[in-house]
């Protein structure tokens, strides 16, 4: 196949993927819309584009399916076929299949797909019969000589590239170079000759950015270049420029840099709308499968959030929404008994709170009874019957791996994986999960996530062993240790301080970072207060330097991450500095202390 045709196909796939997500939105709008005509015309137009495009680049399978889809939409438009939930389900199934096809085509341009079942279903609607809505069980199959991985793409989309050709080339090249000219025979040589596994690199992703944003950015970069030449003139020894002029120029540069930073960060910001659309769909499908009537109310969906945050947020929210539909809401009959509106409501709210994004999912279901959760957790051996836990801690067990209140695993739930994914993913991006519930009234799950992963507010501090940075979001407060009494060597706790009536264990950051090293005798001046698994903990440092924004970079090349190492950043003096999160270092160590404290009190 020549490159041009392949290029065209790739462009088509990208465009089609975008179009399909538009179409999905239209389908969802259709349901419950009083005036479906306009929407149908819009769908028809998109389906027609898709058909034309796929035919011209030679995707016959796609064209055949879209052709049938087009017929059905046309019939709906003319009123020949009634717009029932079943028809919409078929439309959505077609849409899903097309998206699936696009994904497989993206990885293997020659992939084919058997759509006869779906086509039959569409034709059934057209001829007036109503075939039972079949589950789309036909999987996209790859009929090529392609790598065996391609067949598994649905389960491991990220891993496919692991075996891709271009990844292996650099490794081979390096081996070739280190082998060049070696005499054979030394045992070490065979060691190097073995191809090292290339790191699993993520696919270079694409973000659509408005041209005006790029132009604005370009303008400011232009400004910056002007400023740079001005600075060069000032620096010229023959120019006799004043210090005043220099100070002014530096001031200007600072301003421009700020603007450019904001603009370039803005390039990573994506609207949250498509995610909301996906969630609407998830809720609809789950509720339909369970025979429940649920409405989703969305607030704050006009927000833009950082792409990497958005990517990480998708899965947790899908799980939460599914959970809300399944556990969070009662069936119509149950709701009628408790004199609630038979239609359940799930509220999804996005809001900005300082430097965080807050996502709330609230349902008006039966709420969660801590006693019930406790019972289940004991059954699942997650806690022992003698464990003393607060209601809040009990509620958090919902997020533990393997926890499920369901006796039987169904399509929708029961494996005890979903909520674990929520907590893990959210914590991975530095967020927090909160759960509150009122029996009979409903539950609220609240995710608090940093708005951007790249720039954070942080505290710069020193220990006796160097300088470190701690993300500000983790720090509850800072206290001056000189004004507090430190009780040392308390049995079972070690050092502790009393703060406003509470007893807080005191750790030295120095010791946390280097447990095997003898801590210095010098005393620390300040303590930072952290919340570790609901327990307040003090971590002492030598001195607080300042609070500033830092750009998070990966840990240096060749430096393997250790527990609590978030990344590194470059401070004002140009030196790299380690960003650490004491909460991570203390998680797991505190639980005991916590319960010891609880029992002794």
């Amino acid at each position, binding site marked *: 196949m020549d490159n041009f045709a392949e290029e065209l196909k790739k462009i088509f796939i990208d465009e089609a993927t975008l179009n399909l997500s538009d179409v999905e939105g239209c389908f969802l709008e259709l349901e419950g819309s009083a005036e479906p005509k306009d929407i149908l015309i819009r769908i028809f137009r998109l389906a027609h584009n898709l058909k034309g495009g796929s035919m011209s680049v030679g995707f016959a399978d796609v064209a055949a399916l879209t052709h049938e889809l087009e017929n059905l939409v046309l019939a709906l438009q003319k009123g020949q076929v009634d717009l029932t939930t079943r028809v919409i389900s078929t439309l959505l199934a077609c849409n899903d299949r097309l998206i699936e096809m696009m994904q497989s085509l993206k990885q293997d341009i020659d992939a084919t797909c058997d759509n006869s079942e779906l086509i039959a279903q569409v034709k059934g609607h057209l001829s007036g019969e109503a075939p039972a809505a079949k589950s789309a069980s036909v999987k996209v199959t790859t009929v090529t000589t392609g790598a065996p991985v391609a067949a598994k793409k649905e389960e491991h989309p990220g891993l496919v590239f692991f075996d891709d050709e271009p990844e292996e080339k*650099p*490794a081979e090249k*390096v081996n*070739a*170079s*280190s082998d*060049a*000219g*070696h*005499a054979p*025979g*030394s045992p*070490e*040589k065979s*060691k*190097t000759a073995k191809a*090292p*596994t*290339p*790191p*699993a690199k993520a696919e270079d992703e694409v973000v659509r950015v408005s041209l005006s944003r790029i132009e604005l950015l370009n303008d400011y970069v232009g400004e910056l270049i002007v400023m740079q030449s001005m600075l060069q003139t000032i620096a010229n020894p023959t120019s006799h420029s004043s210090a005043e002029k220099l100070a002014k120029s530096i001031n200007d540069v600072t301003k421009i840099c700020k603007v450019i930073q904001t603009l370039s960060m803005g390039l990573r910001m994506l609207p949250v709308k498509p995610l909301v659309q996906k969630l609407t769909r998830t809720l609809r499908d789950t509720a339909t499968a369970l025979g429940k009537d649920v409405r989703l109310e969305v607030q704050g969906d006009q927000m833009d959030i950082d792409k990497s945050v958005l990517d990480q947020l998708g899965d947790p929210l899908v799980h939460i929404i599914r959970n809300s539909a399944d556990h969070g809401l009662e069936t119509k009959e149950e709701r009628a008994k408790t004199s609630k509106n038979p239609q359940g409501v799930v509220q999804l709210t996005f809001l900005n709170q300082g430097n965080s994004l807050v996502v709330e999912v609230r349902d008006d279901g039966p709420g969660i009874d801590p006693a019930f959760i406790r019972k289940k957790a004991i059954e699942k051996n997650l806690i022992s019957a003698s464990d003393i836990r607060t209601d809040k801690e009990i509620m958090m067990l919902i997020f533990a791996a393997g926890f499920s209140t369901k006796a039987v695993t169904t399509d929708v739930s029961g494996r005890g994986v979903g909520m674990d994914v929520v907590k893990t993913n959210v914590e991975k991006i530095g967020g927090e999960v909160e759960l509150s519930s009122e029996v009979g009234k409903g539950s609220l799950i609240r995710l608090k996530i940093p708005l951007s992963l790249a720039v954070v507010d942080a505290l710069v501090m020193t220990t006796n*062993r*160097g*300088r470190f940075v701690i993300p500000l979001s983790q720090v509850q407060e800072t206290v001056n240790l000189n004004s507090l009494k430190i009780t040392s060597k308390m049995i079972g706790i070690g050092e502790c301080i009393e703060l406003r009536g509470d007893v807080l264990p005191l750790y030295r950051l120095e010791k946390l*970072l*280097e*447990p*095997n090293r003898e801590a210095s005798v010098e005393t620390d001046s300040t303590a930072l207060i952290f919340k570790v698994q609901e327990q307040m903990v003090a971590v002492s440092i030598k001195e607080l330097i300042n609070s500033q924004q830092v750009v998070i*970079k*990966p*840990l*240096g*090349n*060749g*430096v*393997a*991450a*250790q527990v609590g190492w978030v990344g*590194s950043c*470059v401070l004002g003096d*140009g*030196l*790299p*500095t*380690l960003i650490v999160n004491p909460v991570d270092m203390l998680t797991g160590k505190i639980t005991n202390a916590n319960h010891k404290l609880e029992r002794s009190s």
Partner: protein
Amino acid sequence: MSDNKMENRYMEFTLGDQFFAIPITAVREVIQRPEFTTMPNMPAHFEGMINLRGKILGVFNIRKKLNVKKIVERAEQSPDVVIVVEHDSISVGMLVDEVTRVIQVTPDMIKDAPLKDDDPSKKYILNIIQTKEALVLQVDVNELLEIDKYRKQLAA
């Protein structure tokens, strides 16, 4: 053609009174000893992090790994330098005394290294390159800078 030649070139550097070499294709650049940030809880042969034009790299003190003592007089006249090695887009620094020259190596110059079994540095040595001036040890950068180990941790 010139590419072929590149692969037969080695960068020679010194540690103490010994000469070592690595393929020049593995070298990204050589920089004067920069300022280091030491890291907690790291092995002794890890010197620290450096900021190389915004990219942060770990630097290894391979003297400690190869068991080479620093010669004091020598250190005074030649400040040490960092060779930045690049392997599959992973860049790591190694601290050496001095980069001395680039050697053009022909296959006949490469000899098996008669390694002693009980020598701890043994696993880092690949061959001996016999030049007119000196015997040069070809070291295994991958092993020395723990690049594979790091890559595995990255993938995990």
